[in-house]
């Protein structure tokens, strides 16, 4: 394990290099060909906002996933654990069903707003219900399961009665960054920056929580307060990126895992690395979608799972063989 310790300080610079390469690739590849033949305006107005949004979304989902895994001491948890995805899905469905036709005159697009509020509302209900059962991480997780099931059921009921919007809703749920504009990036960036700063402050606390709620409290940590603050911050960031990109799955679980496999599981390293690797991963995952299908695009949420899952299994297997 000594090589693993020695190389620790190189992980962050190395992952930053990968991120820069991903940004360059993301700017160069597209239906209009290489960068030389493309108009710079295409790069600036179409490809770069898309790269930027993919980076921000990937970074946020990975960071939120790692943070959730820390406060719930469960590596299989993702940022949608407490109902954020189901809430956002329900919020978006409500807009597609009831408000889509007459929204062009609205001052703000109601779709991201509804998804954002839906995600926050679902997690708020989960936390309130879970706290009334004692507030342990298990009661929160169980409350999250119930709230997500309820929101999904309502959403399905709605969609069955308005089957004309099912395709749009599922397209939204699959996630996308291809319609990204700089204003999307500007919209989510403040939330992501605040959420990211708060979560990074808590990386040492997450390491203390690794010995369990009880022992962490005998070491002087106020476990419930830490969990509440981390969940609020992670949820705020997640809700913000979901509102513009839809439900991109798998990133929030997979990226922190990849990071742990190579760099160990101290949250001091896992959180910052998840930001960089998550951004690079989603930028790269956005590239095949542009060229796979002629005429249309494959949703990025589909690509993350299609490309990510086999890669993840491969990394897990090769790591086992080494260890």
């Amino acid at each position, binding site marked *: *394990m*000594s090589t693993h*310790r020695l190389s620790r300080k190189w992980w962050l610079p190395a992952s930053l290099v990968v991120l820069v390469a991903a940004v360059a690739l993301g700017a160069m590849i597209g239906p209009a060909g290489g960068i030389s033949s493309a108009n710079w305006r295409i790069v600036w107005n179409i490809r770069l906002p898309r790269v930027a949004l993919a980076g921000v979304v990937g970074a946020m989902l990975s960071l939120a996933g790692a943070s959730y895994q820390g406060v719930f001491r469960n590596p299989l948890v993702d940022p949608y654990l407490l109902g954020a995805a189901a809430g956002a899905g329900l919020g978006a469905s409500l807009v597609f069903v009831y408000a889509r036709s007459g929204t062009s005159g609205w001052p703000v697009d109601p779709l991201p707003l509804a998804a954002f509020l839906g995600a926050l509302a679902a997690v708020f209900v989960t936390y309130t219900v879970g706290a009334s059962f004692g507030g342990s991480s298990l009661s929160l997780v169980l409350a999250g399961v119930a709230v997500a099931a309820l929101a999904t059921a309502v959403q399905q009921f709605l969609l069955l009665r308005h089957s004309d919007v099912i395709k749009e809703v599922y397209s939204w749920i699959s996630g996308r960054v291809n319609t990204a504009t700089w204003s999307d990036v500007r919209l989510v960036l403040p939330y992501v920056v605040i959420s990211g700063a708060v979560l990074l*402050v808590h990386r*040492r606390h997450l*390491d*203390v929580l*690794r*010995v*369990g709620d*009880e*022992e*962490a*409290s*005998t*070491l*002087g*940590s*106020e476990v419930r307060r830490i969990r509440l603050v981390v969940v609020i911050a992670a949820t705020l960031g997640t809700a913000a990126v979901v509102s513009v990109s839809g439900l991109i799955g798998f990133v929030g679980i997979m990226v922190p895992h990849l990071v*742990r496999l190579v760099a*160990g*599981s*101290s949250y001091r390293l896992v959180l910052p690395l998840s930001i960089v690797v998550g951004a690079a991963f989603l930028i790269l995952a956005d590239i095949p979608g542009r060229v796979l299908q002629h005429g249309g695009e494959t949703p990025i949420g589909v690509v993350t799972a299609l490309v990510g899952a086999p890669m993840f299994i491969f990394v897990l297997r090769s790591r086992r063989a080494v260890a």
Partner: protein
Amino acid sequence: MSSLGFECLNVRYGTQEALYAFTDQVKPGEWLCLIGPNGAGKSSALRAVAGIVPHRGNITVDGAPLFERSPRRRAALVAYVPQSPLMPDDMTGGEYVLLGRNPYIGYFGSETKHDRALVADVLDRLDLRAFADRRLGTLSGGERQRLVIARAVAQEAPILLLDEPTSALDIGHQQQALELVDRLRREHGLTVVSAMHDLTLAGLYADRLALLHQGHVVASGDAAHVLRPETLSEFYGVSVSVHHEPDGTVVVVPRRSSV
């Protein structure tokens, strides 16, 4: 050195009363060992002081109520070694012991040079230097137990609570762990309260024993006073013979019922 006082301490789980009106005064530098059959309330008393189960009554350190202090201040006064600590497999020994410095680090802060130097010193003194970079999952039970004690030492609390510190160890490592606690107690003037099942070891290391039965203290005093065959028979339902060695050691030996 600090004293630890219990005034009419009650612990209950739901409707189940685990500890009734436990009152005791542990003197500075004293080692009190709680003994008694399973479910007698030994762990409950320790867990109440550690703040992980709710209690009624009063717990004082040097005469001042412990629970009027913040969790961080409490953790700087009382270090708790649980019966089965949760030790993440992929955390290194050094990272684990460093957690003992948590009470001294502000919410937005991180470990200082002093914290790291202190942990390195603790690892040296406990002969654990070799485990600083080893992952906990690769260590044996005895090695892990010494790291848990090292974490408690790094906490620099004057009061040390040990819940069954030797239950998972073989006889050699039991002795090693208790010798370590005894040495630390002398070097740092620690006040120790432990819960133990092995009566001979309890009598060997503790200054005073308190025998609990169904949440009540039924005997308290030195080993020769508490470890009597008739007392143990009454509260443990066992048949034992008790030998007194010339050096004052009290040895409790179970007797096989006649065949």
